[in-house]
């Protein structure tokens, strides 16, 4: 079949390096992946095209890039499935990380985040002589996370990292969860309290905005956002609730549980804590802007209709689950 690959290119060796688009029109097999098409360009048409790729079977994690605007593994994406009516496929380097050349991006930031979570097993007790006893279910659960191939697709399309490079990000937080959820890591009961204390800090687990892009683009079904939510549960269950995130979550439930909707005046106050004067002061400019633009929330917060139904619902949710 005919295909047009439109590639966003960048040559840092050029006299005046700038980004430009180049189109390649050629024949590929019906079952070809986008990577097959790119390799054909590189091998038969233009050897100057740079990209990373290796295994061709979605295990090495080299070929994450944006295809039609979303991060994908090129080797896992059938060309046929992403062509538009004119048989065109748009290929760009991964996002968030700076471009080095063509489709090659700088992963330094990515690996720095991974290293920040101390990504190795840290049992507090002595090692057993034989293997650690563990249930197959617990290992299968972890394998669902360790199957992450570190391709960076989630980081590429993370809407928080795009604006805040200090955020640990979906890959590193999923990696962290891989340890906090490991019965071998941490104390004798498998609780990794020290890790959780680190992860609740600013730029950590509570900075995810739950946009679910990472879940959408992950080629291995790791669902990083779900792992981040599980980290939050672990932190709260472990009583590590002295963080804006935990207070925000608790205030959210409390406020909605009371009136049926968020009280936008109280929520930020409860999140940072009523005694946290500097943080409260930092809300002033936002408040003034809201006021002058007619967006100030009402001072007297009203209940929604039938709020009692909602309260019952929340009460039910908070009851311990019946096994």
């Amino acid at each position: 079949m005919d295909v047009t690959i439109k590639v966003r290119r960048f040559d840092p060796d050029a006299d005046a390096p700038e980004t430009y688009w180049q189109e390649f029109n050629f024949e590929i097999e019906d079952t070809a992946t986008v990577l097959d098409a790119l390799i054909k360009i590189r091998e038969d048409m233009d050897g100057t095209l740079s990209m990373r790729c290796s295994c061709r079977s979605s295990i090495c994690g080299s070929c994450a890039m944006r295809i039609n605007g979303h991060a994908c593994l090129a080797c896992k994406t059938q060309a046929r499935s992403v062509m538009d009516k004119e048989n065109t496929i748009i290929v760009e380097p991964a996002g968030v990380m700076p471009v080095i050349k063509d489709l090659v991006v700088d992963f330094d930031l990515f690996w720095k985040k991974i290293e920040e979570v101390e990504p190795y097993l840290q049992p507090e007790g002595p090692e057993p002589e034989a293997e650690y006893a563990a249930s197959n279910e617990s290992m299968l659960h972890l394998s669902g996370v360790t199957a992450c191939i570190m391709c960076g697709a989630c980081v590429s399309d993370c809407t928080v990292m795009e604006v805040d490079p200090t955020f640990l990000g979906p890959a590193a937080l999923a990696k962290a969860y891989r340890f906090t959820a490991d019965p071998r890591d941490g104390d004798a009961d498998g609780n990794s309290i020290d890790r959780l204390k680190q992860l609740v800090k600013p730029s950590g687990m509570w900075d995810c905005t739950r946009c679910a892009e990472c879940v959408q683009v992950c080629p291995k079904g790791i669902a990083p956002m779900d792992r981040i939510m599980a980290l939050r549960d672990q932190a709260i269950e472990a009583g590590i609730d002295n963080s804006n995130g935990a207070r925000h979550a608790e205030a959210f439930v409390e406020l909605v549980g009371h009136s049926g909707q968020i009280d936008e005046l109280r929520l930020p106050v409860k999140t940072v804590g009523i005694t946290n004067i500097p943080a409260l002061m930092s809300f002033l400019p936002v408040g003034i802007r809201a006021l002058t633009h007619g967006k100030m929330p009402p001072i007297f917060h009203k209940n929604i209709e039938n709020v009692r139904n909602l309260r019952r619902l929340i009460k039910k949710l908070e009851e311990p689950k019946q096994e």
Partner: protein
Amino acid sequence: MLEHDVLVVGAGLAGMRAAIAARAAGANTAVISKVHPVRSHSNAAQGGINAALVDRGDPWEDHAYDTVKGSDYLGDQDAIELMCRAAGGAVIDMEHMGVTFSRDDDGKLGTRAFGGQGRARTFYVGDFTGQAMLHVMFEQLIKSGVRRYEEWFVTSLIEEDGQVCGVMALEIRTGQLFAIRAKTLIFCTGGLGRVFEPSTNALIVTGDGMALAYNAGARLMDMEMVQYHPTTLAGSGVLISEAARGEGAYLLDKNGDRFMEKYAPNMIELASRDVVSRAEQTEINAGNGVDGCVFLDCRHLGETLIKEKLSQIREIGIDLAGVDMVKDLIPIRPGMHYMMGGIKTDVDGLTNVPGVYAAGECACVSVHGGNRLGANSLLDTIIFGQRSGNHAADACRELEFVEFNVDEAVSREEKRIQAMLDRPQNGDRIASVRLAMGETMNKNLAVYRDQAGMDETLHDLVGLRERYATVPVDSKGRVFNTDLVFALELGFMLDCAETITVSAQDRKDSRGAQARTDFPDRDDENWMKHVTVIKGEAGPDISYLPVTITQWTPETRKY
């Protein structure tokens, strides 16, 4: 000046294991790898890692016997004994490091059956054991504090007065060349799959270390022993794990018959890989396949088992061939997969070149002999990676750095590379030279071989070498010039291709992975020996080494 006591070239499982061991032994250690460590091809090992755990009533001798028999008695039994004895401890070590091995109902490590073995002793993580182990090893590498040169490509070795004393390396990201001085080098560069087309191997698997060592005078051994895996996917040639057959999948011909019953009445689909690949090829040649393939049938295994234990290969089938193994047959054929041969080492990884070590697929101890058992390769990497790291670190205490003129070394290499970049366009392409090499190798050095075919390939290789001398490099820039890297890799691959071909021509019998139609029998009287090759003045020089036999006398193999 960049300098290290121990410089490990390659950062797959063997390389990282070696580096961690050398660092732990107190040596100033670094790893250099042309890709980030977690991109290494150890990732692709799917099925698992073999070990006889004595506390499960599985004596290591049984594992060793299966390995010796699998090797068609060409493996060195002292090395095999050593590996199998250490296997249990090595697997437990990996578990302690954090590998999420599958468990049994008692919470202990669970096993699955694998080819050519008397009992189930393969420990596994789904069907991505290599990836699981590689990422854990990388975690340990981070913890160890070993210096990492990531995306640095070794272009040549530096020798002074006949002594290897470092490497020249290209920092791919900047295109800058550096000399790195080292007291000892450990090659852990993996296999050479891309010498063949198609191959299950990743695009980075280009025999760099074997060629670098060979050109520095190292002895290569068993280079004729190229494993064709029985189940590679039609079309792309990507691997479909032996774990499928380990879990009970059948091989069917076009009539739906389990043809392996004819060839291996006891083990059937779980005979050793050479036996199964030959059977498949025989059936395909006899017209009992469809489009050059036979079929892998997993349908009776059920969706639940497939999802839990074979999820990755199911995904591969769907993505690359449009077949869902839960309900469809998978068209498969034998495909080039693994190199049993490599840089000849002793059990400590040491080669015949002072200061140079090798471990993993690029090395040949030899524990695989004529045919490697499935799930013995991961074991090989961690056992001999660790041993070579330990030994190199010890050796460094007695060694001094060899002085050499760094500027001269850099400028010499700079000139060589600039000359490659400056070659004028002549209509030829790097990829077409590589493809021609891969096709002639896959035509004449595949499952069945004969003299005429191998002569043809050797002749082809001479022509390809001529083309290689003038083939242009499209990309002239320095930053992330992958075209230049491919050109350099192609040179390494041509060296490897030649050593494979001359070794296979020399061995005049059929043993393990080498099946010659003109010498169809195993000839223990004349050929129970290793074929080795050293680079001579006029090309490869063949000589022989004896096979070490300790307790298992060679006998006819039956599965």
